[in-house]
Structure formats: C-alpha cells, structure tokens
C-alpha cells in the first residue's frame, strides 16, 4: 500500500530524515514513534506530498508521489499536526469545501453525514470552527481527512492536546478506521501507540531505530536473560552481600552478578545476568536452600516499550544478540557505537533547531 525507499530529507547540511525505508501493508495500523524532532512530521509531510524528499522514493498504492502527485494524493487523507481548519467557516461549510477540494464523486449529503457521524461532530455542524473546543477541532480535522474515503490515512499526533476521555475516543475511532483504511499514526506517547497500532516503527534522529510489533521489539531488546533477586542472608550485614554475590557467580551459566540497593534493612537486591541459554533459577533456589538464605523476590527483567523507547532514543548501546536479530529479519535494530552516538547527538542538537525553523516556514 505504502512503500518508502531510502527516504532522505536534508535541510542544508542537516539530515532531518536519513535513509528511511519501510513498507505498510493494506489494513495495517502503523505507529510512528519518536521523541520530538526525530523526523516524524518531516516524514509524514513527505508521505503526503507537502514537501519533497531530497532523495528516495515514496509509492502510494504503487504511484510515485513526486511523479504523479494528484493521483497519489487522491489516495491519502492527511491530518497534520495542526489541523488545516479555516476558523471563519462553519463545520458544514468547511467539510463541503474539502469535499469540493478533493473532487469527491460520492453522494455529497450521505457521505458528509457518514463522516460526521463517524467523528461524532454531527451536532456541531452549523457552528463556526473558531468557537469549537480543541477536541472538536481535532475531530473536524479527522473528518476532513476521511472525506472521499481515502485508502490511506496519515495522522500526525492525532491526540495531542485532548483530554483523557477524548483521547480514548479518538483511539477507538482510529482502531475502527484501521479496519477499512491503512493508517499511519505518529505520536511521542507510548501507551497510545501500544494501544492502537499493529506495528511500530521507532524513529530517532532521522533513522529507523526499530521496526516490528510491540512484543517483537520488546523481545529483541529486552534482556530475557536478566533478572532481579532479593535474598535475605542470615546476618543482615554487608558480609551477606559479598557471600551471596560470590556464591551466585559460581553457578554455571551466570555471566554477571551485582548487588543493587538495600531495599529492606540488611537485605539487598541482586542483578543477575546469564548467558541466555541456561535457566539458572532452579540452581539459585537450590543454592539458597542449601545456605539457609531466603529468596524474597525473583523477577525477570521485563522491559516495557517505554524502557525500550528510552533506551533507543537516549542512544544507549544495547546488548542485543546477533543471531536472534537474524532469525527475525522483519525486525531491524540499529545500534550505535558510543562514538557514533556521540556524533549523532551533536548532529541532532543542530537538527532540532533546524527542523523547527523548517516547521515555521
């Protein structure tokens, strides 16, 4: 449905979007996740033909957006970050205008009624847009994108500035739309993406940092071979700590042990990392039993999408196993070495100010 190949956008020397490639299949809801200034809006503006790409290709339904813009744009409904509403028009007049603008051939009255019902704006149709609340404005923006039933919907931060109820409403609406449309949605709010999207692309500093379902991404980055233990020793002193660390270290399959904070008086938490092949939980249990220690807690590190997002976007290097990534070719994780990350950080600092400039233009 949508195919993006090696998309790059440069503002001067700065690359706002750098060599992004992905495909979206029909009926998929794709979430674009990234911190502010990561290149989400730039990518969406390129997808919709608002700005051109410096290099690379975008195919919408097999039509190149730069070669045949009119044909390609007819397939897209776009809700930009700031909905393109004319404040001096009534909702009804505005939707009629968009209907004409998109040269929609559907029966006017029925189609507009449908769209208004779907977005729940039927009761505000005679009102001036400038008098509507932010939530209603956003919904009118969404209605505008839906006119002419475009097969592709591109929504740039659709829930920004809405109250929690409205957010839930819009989310369920998007889910509903996902049944009939291919949807690309951007956000910097994680739960939102997790709640709505089938697939997630994490963008950071203009590159695709991760691509897959939430679980897939999580699995590949989380360290399933990491766990946290809380063990009570006999003396409740630091000597316990040293003893326990030493003993666990000797279990075969354990790569690394570190005593963490003192969570309860005299009782410490221990971070244990294994080689990923052996399950050491039983061995640890046995060890504790033999020594008369009590295991008060055992928790496998389960990184949430939030952790992953933070890790990826903070440029922290991750311990990802190569063979695992190869097994699932759909998932791509770009990791940076420390030097690269540092360079990218500096570039991004410039990029951000640059992108802001571009936005204001």
């Amino acid at each position, binding site marked *: 449905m949508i195919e993006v190949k090696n998309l790059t956008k440069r503002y001067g020397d700065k690359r706002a979007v750098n060599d992004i490639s992905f495909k979206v299949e029909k009926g998929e809801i794709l979430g674009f996740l990234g911190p502010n200034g990561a290149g989400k809006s730039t990518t969406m503006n390129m997808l919709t033909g608002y700005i051109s790409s410096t290099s690379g290709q975008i195919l919408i339904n097999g039509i190149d957006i730069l070669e045949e813009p*009119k044909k390609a744009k007819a397939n897209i409904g776009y809700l*930009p970050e700031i909905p*393109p509403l004319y404040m001096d*028009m009534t909702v009804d007049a505005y939707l009629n205008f968009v209907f*004409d*603008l998109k*040269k929609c051939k559907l029966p006017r009255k029925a189609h507009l009624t449908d769209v208004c019902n779907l977005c729940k704006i039927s009761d505000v149709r005679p009102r001036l847009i400038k008098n509507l609340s932010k939530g209603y404005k956003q919904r009118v923006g969404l209605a*505008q994108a839906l006119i002419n039933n475009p097969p592709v919907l591109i929504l740039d931060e659709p829930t920004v500035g809405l109250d929690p109820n409205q957010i839930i409403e819009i989310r369920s609406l998007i889910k509903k739309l996902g049944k009939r449309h291919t949807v690309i949605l951007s956000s910097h709010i994680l739960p939102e993406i997790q709640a709505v999207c089938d697939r997630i692309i994490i963008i950071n500093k203009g590159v695709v940092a991760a691509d897959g379902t939430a679980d897939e991404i999580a699995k590949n980055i989380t360290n399933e071979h990491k766990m946290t233990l809380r063990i009570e020793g006999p003396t409740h002193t630091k000597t316990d700590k040293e003893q326990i660390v030493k003993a666990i270290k000797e279990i075969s399959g354990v790569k690394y042990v570190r005593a963490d904070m003192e969570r309860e008086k005299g009782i410490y938490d221990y971070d244990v990392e294994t080689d990923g092949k052996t399950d050491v939980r039983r061995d640890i249990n046995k060890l504790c039993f033999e020594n008369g220690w009590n295991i008060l807690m055992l928790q496998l590190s389960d990184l949430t999408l939030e952790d992953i997002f933070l890790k990826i976007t903070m440029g922290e290097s991750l311990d990802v196993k190569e063979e695992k990534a190869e097994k699932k070719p759909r998932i791509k994780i770009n990791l940076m070495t420390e030097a690269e990350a540092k360079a990218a950080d500096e570039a991004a600092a410039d990029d951000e100010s640059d992108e802001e400039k571009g936005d204001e233009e």
Partner: protein
Amino acid sequence: MGAIYRREMGSFFTSGLGYVFLTVFYIASGYFFYNDVVKSGLSDTSPMFVSMFIVVIFLIPVLTMRLLSEEKKNRTDQGLLTAPIGLWELVLGKFFAAFTLYVIAESIIFVYAVILRYLGDIVWPSLLGNYFAMLILGAAFIAIGIFISSLTENQMSSAVVSVFIFLVLYAFDDSALDKLNSNSFFSKVFKVGTREKMLDFLSHLSMRSRYTEFTKGVFSLSSIVFFLSIVFLFNFFTVRVLEKKRWA
C-alpha cells in the same frame, strides 16, 4: 479551482474584508466622480479614472494581502497542498476570487453612467474604454499582490510591500523617465545611444503610461497584451514560489 474560488468569495464576506473594500471603493470613486466629473460640468469621465489609479493602489492590497500569507500562517496550506489539486488551480482560484470582487466594485461605474445620463450625454466609447483599462490594470495588480502575499506569512508586511510596489509603478511614467534622462549621473554612466534605447525600453514597461493612454481614449492592443502578460507572469511566479517551498 471552483472550491478555492467559492471559499475565498465566502471568506471575503464573512471576514468583512469584502465589505470594507467595497465601501471604501464606492466612497472614493463617488468622491472622484463628483469632483472630477459632475463638478467640472463635462461629460468626459476620464479625469475620474486617472484619479482612481491611486485608489486602486491602496485598495488592491486589501484584497490580496491575506490570500496566501494567511494560509501559510495558519498552516491551512497543508490541507490545500496535500489535496489532489494542482498549484495553478489553487493560485487561479484565489486570483479570480479577488478579481471578481474587484469587478463588483468597479461596476459602480455603470451607476455613475446612469446619473450622467440625467445630467447630459455620455461618451460611451471613452467610458467603456476606461472601464476596461481599469479592469486589466486591477487584474495585473491583483496578480502582483498575490505574488507578494505568497512570499510572506505576515498580512501587514504583504500589504505594505504591495502598496510600496504599486506606488513605484505609479511614479514610473514618462515624466519620471524624462527626469531620469536629464539626471547628470545617469547621463554620465550611459552613452548617448544606449541611453535612448534604455529609456525607450523602460517607457514600454510603464503601467501608468499605458493606463493613461486608455483614459485618453486610445485602445491599444499592445497594452492589453502587456497587462495580460503581467497577470500571467505573476500568477506563474506565485505557482513557482509554492512549488519551490516544497523543494526547499
């Protein structure tokens, strides 16, 4: 194009800008009609049209200043530029909306014609010639105004720059060229032959000279082509500005 045209027409009247434009236009033209035609006791309407040039200079920017600058400022251009329409449709829709309002304003002339009929005879060829001249002058100014509006996000600066440019075009007539010719610096820089050629070339570009020609009753085809070319050229420039923005 129809959608944009209808929206702009609607917006002229919901924003009140259209009423302001029409009111000021009618008052100013009414004053000049009374002062230049009725009071003089002649049935020749040309003096009124000469004065109207100044009114047009200050009023056309009112029509054109927000046409593209406001779209950019409110980000509504994102809706227009991602819709399946061409840039020419967009620009011409706006152009014809402004032009329609201008025609409505200008057609007050025919009310004056009716008044003149009571007072005496009307020289119809002169009146119609003048009417037509003002129409194409306005069309050219509207195209230029829209072009200036496409360059900025600020309505006010768009209006101020437009007025300034129109004033320069107004000042730029044959007598200005004569002054330039007698300017000692100018005559030192250019040789006698090139100087004449240059002045000749510049005089062909003077909108005011061409407009004055019409008010004198000369209906010249080259002037019509000149004004229509300006209309085309500046609408074309506007399209290029919008296109360039995508590639920047």
